């Protein structure tokens, strides 16, 4: 009798031991899901990086405290790549092969992101919402992208300026790298399609000390509007230099990622009247219920962090990721997560326009709205703008 029990127990253990890994997915156990990412905890993008992580962690802790998703808590592992592509690749290999994460949530920067995509695609590891806007990630099965592509952003701004404002002489000051050239090239194409020519194009090297030459040339060109495809520091330098030489005739317009409170703070109050394309509602002042909830959760779980567009990004896309996890159901696998996300249609969220995905459509947002700096803040001057069938369309905010 005792011997039989022992045998049965052994048999059961062996069966369970064989059965359990077959049913489960990498990084998923009965009570936890392990995710990871490689981010900028040092290097030039350290501020956006740490803020995105703060937003991610705030939302994940909120979810874990509310009982997790299908009874599973979400755990995470983050590594620093300092915006270096080779480090980003090494981190991803470590996350996938050694730590065995379920998926990657929100990494950052065009070059580090591009460097890791082939590897993640090959390993069939989902990459959720990298913080970048190059359209080259379009149509990848294991990648879901976040905000409006840089070329769509430029299309929206150019058409709004030409069609709604009747501007003709348009130029650009861009960062002298792949990022800046995304905006430059689309602007050229868009203007040519309207029978116009780019009236001035000036580049700024990252870490430049003086932008006086660029602003002087823009002033000389007598533009109606000048796009700024820069990061906040140099963007603020341009505003200060323009204020100094009294450049009033030309509207300065910040691109999507530049339309950020930091850009205004750094410019020291000379930004009044500047226009920009905004991808987000005002993180500090917008009082829709969804935005109030965001500030409440951020304050509770990451009290050292003031609301800004980077931690709002981390928060919002983690929320969307968790929506996918919920829809994927109890028997979570990587393939099911992708199917679940693809099933999302018109997901009303109170922060950006309703999100819809589908097979072959993994982009969360493709609109933005125009703002003007009034009294030191971005005030909307248009509805949500997007491009549908090659035409500029506007819908209420």
């Amino acid at each position: 009798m005792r011997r039989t029990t022992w045998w049965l127990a052994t048999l059961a253990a062996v069966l369970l031991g064989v059965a359990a890994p077959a049913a489960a997915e990498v990084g998923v156990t009965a009570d936890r899901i392990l995710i990871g990412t490689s981010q900028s905890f040092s290097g030039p993008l350290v501020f956006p990086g740490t803020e995105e992580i703060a937003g991610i962690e705030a939302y994940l802790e909120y979810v874990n405290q509310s009982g997790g998703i299908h009874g599973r808590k979400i755990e995470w592992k983050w590594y620093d790549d300092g915006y270096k592509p080779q480090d980003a690749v090494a981190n991803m290999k470590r996350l996938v092969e050694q730590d065995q994460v379920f998926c990657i949530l929100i990494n950052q920067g065009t070059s580090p992101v591009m460097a890791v995509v082939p590897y993640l695609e090959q390993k069939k590891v989902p990459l959720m919402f990298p913080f970048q806007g190059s359209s080259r990630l379009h149509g990848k099965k294991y990648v879901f992208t976040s905000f409006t592509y840089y070329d769509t952003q430029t299309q929206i701004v150019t058409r709004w300026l030409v069609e709604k404002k009747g501007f003709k002489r348009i130029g650009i000051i861009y960062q002298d790298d792949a990022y800046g050239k995304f905006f430059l090239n689309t602007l050229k194409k868009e203007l040519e399609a309207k029978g116009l020519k780019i009236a001035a194009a000036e580049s700024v090297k990252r870490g430049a000390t003086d932008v006086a030459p660029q602003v002087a040339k823009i002033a000389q060109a007598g533009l109606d509007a000048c796009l700024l495809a820069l990061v906040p520091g140099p963007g603020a330098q341009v505003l200060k230099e323009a204020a100094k030489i009294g450049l009033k005739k030309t509207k300065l317009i910040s691109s999507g990622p530049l339309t950020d409170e930091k850009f205004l703070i750094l410019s020291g109050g000379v930004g009044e009247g500047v226009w920009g394309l905004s991808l987000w509602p005002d993180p500090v002042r917008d009082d829709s219920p969804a935005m109030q909830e965001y500030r409440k959760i951020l304050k509770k779980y990451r009290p050292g962090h003031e609301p800004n567009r980077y931690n709002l990004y981390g928060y919002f896309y983690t929320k969307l990721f968790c929506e996918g996890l919920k829809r994927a159901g109890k028997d979570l696998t990587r393939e099911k997560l992708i199917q679940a996300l693809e099933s999302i249609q018109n997901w009303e969220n109170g922060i950006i326009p309703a999100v819809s995905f589908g097979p072959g459509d993994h982009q969360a947002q493709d609109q933005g709205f125009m703002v003007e700096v009034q009294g030191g803040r971005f005030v909307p001057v248009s509805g949500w703008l997007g491009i549908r069938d090659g035409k500029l369309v506007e819908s209420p905010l």
Partner: protein
Amino acid sequence: MFWQLVVSGLATGCVYALVALGLTLIYRATEHVNFAQGELAMVGAFLGFTLHVHLQLPVWAAVLGGAVLGGAVGWVCELAVIRPAEGQPHVNVFIITLGLSIVLKSLAGMVWSHDEFPFPPLFSPRGVRLGSVVVTPLNLGTIAVALGIMVGLFAFFRYTRHGVAMRAVCENPEAAQLMGVEVRRVYAFAWILSAGLSALAGALIAPVLNLSTHMGAVVIPAFAAAILGGWGSFPGAIAGGMALGVIENLAGGYLAAQIKNMVPFLVVLAVLVARPQGLLGEREVRKV
């Protein structure tokens, strides 16, 4: 546009010049090349910023306080990592200062974060129209401070005991020591003065560049300025800095985007080929 670019370039060039002066000071006293000079400027500017924001000192007092504290940081660096390497080849010390620059940048990030901050300007950044040129008190103030410091340094080396001692140590450390000069004290003093000057330079450029831990990159144009003017020469550092600032701006204003960034360094190369001792450097002649 020409004169506009010249004035703006002179102001930027003065900041290069101040950092280049710091490099020159340390080189003249110790024959070491200090790669951490830019980080000393950055830390000094952050210290001044902290005094202004947390102790609510007026900007001028905070900037001066930052220069004094920055000098103290220079002293600590000299005591902690440079002095132990005394007598080692220059290349060792150069690598030590390279490490020091990385350590200072990381420590500053831990204390103040790697975020960017708006730095209150010492002089008004509002433009004033003079004929066809718009200048700001910030531009003019920066130029005035740099020239004032150069005159002060000149007087210091010519008329004070410390200054004469430093020159003596530079010429011949052994002989100076035999004559009763405390060589180690002179080395420490060179670091303090150099770091203090760089802190001041940091505070002058921060309103334009924004205060951040990445500001240390200003050491690269400062090196170029010091070499252009004549490595080891004080007037050369000033002239080289101003020339580099103006060349950069004129290249940006009149040349195509693709080549403007390399023009300043082409000029440095051309000057060095034609005149290896730099614009104002002394030609070293070795008699065998």
